[in-house]
């Protein structure tokens, strides 16, 4: 998801602020031995020395990575490719690659990474660069008109219903699965999420989850702590752990000041954002509606009956309505990009649910002024959870319900079925995809501006990040929030069904009326449910049910 947001950020990502001085280099050099990494997860194929070398590209004080750096990274990660492919083996093969060009990331990096691969294998790649906003329309039109003119495609997992569901992708060969070290993926990206109908199609290059980002200076401020006590609030002043507390803290903060500046609590994203804003309501709702042990939380899995208008979802919608008056002026016109890059990262707001971009952008972007005054947590819990099967709210014996939202499920590389008829092209396409999903290369993309976030267990290797210039406490908090969410037994997986963004977009439009006070939360939710039912009928209910089940591995 990072890419989406880098694109909106419109800032030049720089490593200057992170990789400062020779200290970082010294630390990296000192950690060169594997001994320093003892106790941290490593991939079976991870080459620690190589990863240390990669983390130094471009190195401290050398500015943002360039095409030469990307090529160097690609070249250093060619080892597994050379084990499976002979020099010049793909001579004469031309592959077409469709991907994004957001913020000069994605395809721009892929070009550099694959340059050494092209030189070694003899294959050439024709690039189709798309802006994020054009991506969905281009993909859907290609599918609908039978004009799939690309052999390899960078694609978000939610589109698998549209693409894999129509049998347009090539199944991953076993040699690729071994080359990319599939077992190193974080657990939730393994089957069923990493598969479609039990088969593997995706080479992961990213992962996604919403986490809570919060301001450390707010929650350690003695003035606010005193005011909290003075106003008779229960418990100590601190980071809210439940949504009820998020509401209470945000209302409390209205009108408060630190150093003469107004402070705010939680930031909502009420403005439609092409379907993506719906993820933020969903992240508010999961603790209320994701019942432990049940995979479905957005639709009934046997009927596709929407749950959006059940009391759990309505409570989440009502929470937004209740809180908007306590948020900054014009918050109703704030989309996710605004809350992240024009508010939280530049000092407005004390809490923000977002993708992992916040943690890396905060310390690598020149325009992010919030700096290291933030830390991270998983999404807040709920004291009770709505059981859609019994139709009742329940207080769980295990305590408050936590349900991290794996919003968007990350980017992947997919090889199209059109290459299957030509064995040479087939191997070439999968070899290129495997390099982009390489285990060591992914460490670099997680740490440097790329558009991608950690998605392997071996990425949770704090010394490597510290060698890259991150403060240990900071990156530990960041990685804890990410990995705890990824590995949570009750994490919420969205439906990878055809047209899922149509459902989200419809909801955004209806919910905007609720937030503007034209409808009650229940009325708005009922409208969404009605429109979702109509859309399901239009897209084919039986097939949607089958795809929904397949996407959840049921």
């Amino acid at each position: 998801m990072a890419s989406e947001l880098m694109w909106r950020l419109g800032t030049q990502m720089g490593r200057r602020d992170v990789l400062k001085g020779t200290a970082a280099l010294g630390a990296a050099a000192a950690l060169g031995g594997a001994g320093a990494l003892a106790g941290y997860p490593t991939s079976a194929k991870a080459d620690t020395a190589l990863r240390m070398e990669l983390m130094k590209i471009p190195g401290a004080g050398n500015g943002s990575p360039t095409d030469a750096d990307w090529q160097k990274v690609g070249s250093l990660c060619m080892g597994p490719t050379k084990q499976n492919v002979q020099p010049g083996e793909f001579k004469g093969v031309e592959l077409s690659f469709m991907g994004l060009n957001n913020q000069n990331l994605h395809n721009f990096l892929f070009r550099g990474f694959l340059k050494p691969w092209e030189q070694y294998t003899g294959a050439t790649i024709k690039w189709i660069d798309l802006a994020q906003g054009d991506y969905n329309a281009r993909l859907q039109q290609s599918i609908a008109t039978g004009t799939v003119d690309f052999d390899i495609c960078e694609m978000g997992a939610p589109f698998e219903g549209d693409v894999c569901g129509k049998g347009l992708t090539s199944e991953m060969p076993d040699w690729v699965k071994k080359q990319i070290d599939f077992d190193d993926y974080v657990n939730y990206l393994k089957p069923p999420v990493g598969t479609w109908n039990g088969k593997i199609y995706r080479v992961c290059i990213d992962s996604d989850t919403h986490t809570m980002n919060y301001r450390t200076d707010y929650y350690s401020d003695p003035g606010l702590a005193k005011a909290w006590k003075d106003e008779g609030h229960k418990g100590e002043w601190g980071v809210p752990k439940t949504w009820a507390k998020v509401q209470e803290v945000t209302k409390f903060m209205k009108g408060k000041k630190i150093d003469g500046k107004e402070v705010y609590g939680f930031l909502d994203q009420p403005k439609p954002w092409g379907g993506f804003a719906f993820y933020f309501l969903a992240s508010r709702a999961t603790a209320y509606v994701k019942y432990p042990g049940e995979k479905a939380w957005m639709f009934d899995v046997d009927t596709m009956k929407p749950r959006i208008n059940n009391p759990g979802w309505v409570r989440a919608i009502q929470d937004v309505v209740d809180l908007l008056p306590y948020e900054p002026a014009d918050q109703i016109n704030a989309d996710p990009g605004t809350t992240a890059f024009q508010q939280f990262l530049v000092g407005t707001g004390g809490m923000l649910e977002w993708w992992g971009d916040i943690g890396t952008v905060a310390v690598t972007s020149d325009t992010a002024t919030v700096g290291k005054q933030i830390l991270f947590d998983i999404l807040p819990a709920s004291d009770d959870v709505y059981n859609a099967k019994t139709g009742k709210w329940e207080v769980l014996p295990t305590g408050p319900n936590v349900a991290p939202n794996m919003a968007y499920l990350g980017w992947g590389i997919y090889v199209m079925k059109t290459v299957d008829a030509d064995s040479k092209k087939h191997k070439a396409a999968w070899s290129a995809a495997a390099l982009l999903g390489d285990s060591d290369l992914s460490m670099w993309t997680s740490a440097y501006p790329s558009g991608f976030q950690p998605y392997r267990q071996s990425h949770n290797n704090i010394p490597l990040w510290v060698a890259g210039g991150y403060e240990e406490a900071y990156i530990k908090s960041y990685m804890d929030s990410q990995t705890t969410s990824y590995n949570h037994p009750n994490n919420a997986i969205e439906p990878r069904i055809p047209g899922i963004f149509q459902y989200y977009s419809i909801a955004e439009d209806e919910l905007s009326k609720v937030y503007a006070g034209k409808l009650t939360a229940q009325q708005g939710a009922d409208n969404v449910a009605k429109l979702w039912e109509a859309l399901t009928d239009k897209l084919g209910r039986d097939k949607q049910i089958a795809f929904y089940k397949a996407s959840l591995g049921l």
Partner: protein
Amino acid sequence: MQNEIASRAAADARHRAADAAVAKRAVAGRRLIRAASLGLGLVVLAQVLSATDVLPLGLATWRPTLFAYIVWSVALGISQVLIRGEQGKQALFLLPALLFTIAMVIFPTFFGLGIATTDWNLSSLTGVHFDLFGNIATLAGDAFFWNALLNMGYYVLSVLVQYGIAFGLALLLNADIRGRKFFRVAFLLPFMLSPVAISWMIGKSIMEARYGPAATLARMLGWESPAFYGVGWIARASIMTMDAWNWIPFIIILLLAGLQALPGDVAEAARVDGASPWQAFWKITFPLMLPVSVTAIILRIIFELKLADIVINVTAGGPGGATDTVSSFIYREYRDRSSVGYGTMLAEFYLILIIVFVTALLALASRWMRRVS
């Protein structure tokens, strides 16, 4: 005498021969266009049969029809010359533009009518079906569309305000003021900017609620917590303001051209007769400017009916649809919801509404102009 008769006979013979040649060319021309039309018809028929799987001709694209249309267009041009001679040659100047318009505007419009009768959704797994009545029913009950249409009424009314401001500025620029040339260029600058740039520069920066200069000014003026997009009517007014800033120069250009074309002696005579500046404007300048004014307003309304870019970029139609336009709503139906059938229905319906509205507006303006003059 005999020579004269012989000479007339020879002339008649030449005329007959020439007529025969003309007739022969005309016949050839008719045959050519008939043959080309038959060929085009056959290719289209073959394509349709192939596309509907009636005949397995393996025509993967519609390029053969395009090529057949190009061949037919060339044949039409040649036949015009053969059939109509000099007049046909004159027609050749018009035909390319006409044929291009047919291919790129008229045909897609009618083809769109066909799409509008379907339930085509790019994500649908069940194919494309006829759903005209379903689309009509959805349209009739689509609160977002009717809300957007109502908003278009407000936006169109705002054109009158724009016109008033533009007239004032045009009078100013037409007057003998210092720095007139500079101001003429300066006033045109907003028109040179893209609405997308205006959205970001003004809508999202200058009017940003916390640090934007407009918000700071509003605070200084006593608005404690300025929010330009928080409440429906304020958000709509903000969009109208940006849109006006972008387009007022266009109206100024037209009005200024009209003002400069006014005969100076009429105004001079009014002054000699003792008319005040207001009387000179209201009794002379304004009536004389009516034809230009009507043209400017109608053109501006046509442009206003297409308003979308600023809305999409700044408010996405919100809050709660308060700033939504029909075009921005159709954009969401297409881009975010892949709803080709229903989206096309909306677009075609809106086109018909615009045609009816603008036609009525022109008729009313024409009648009013006749009455005034």
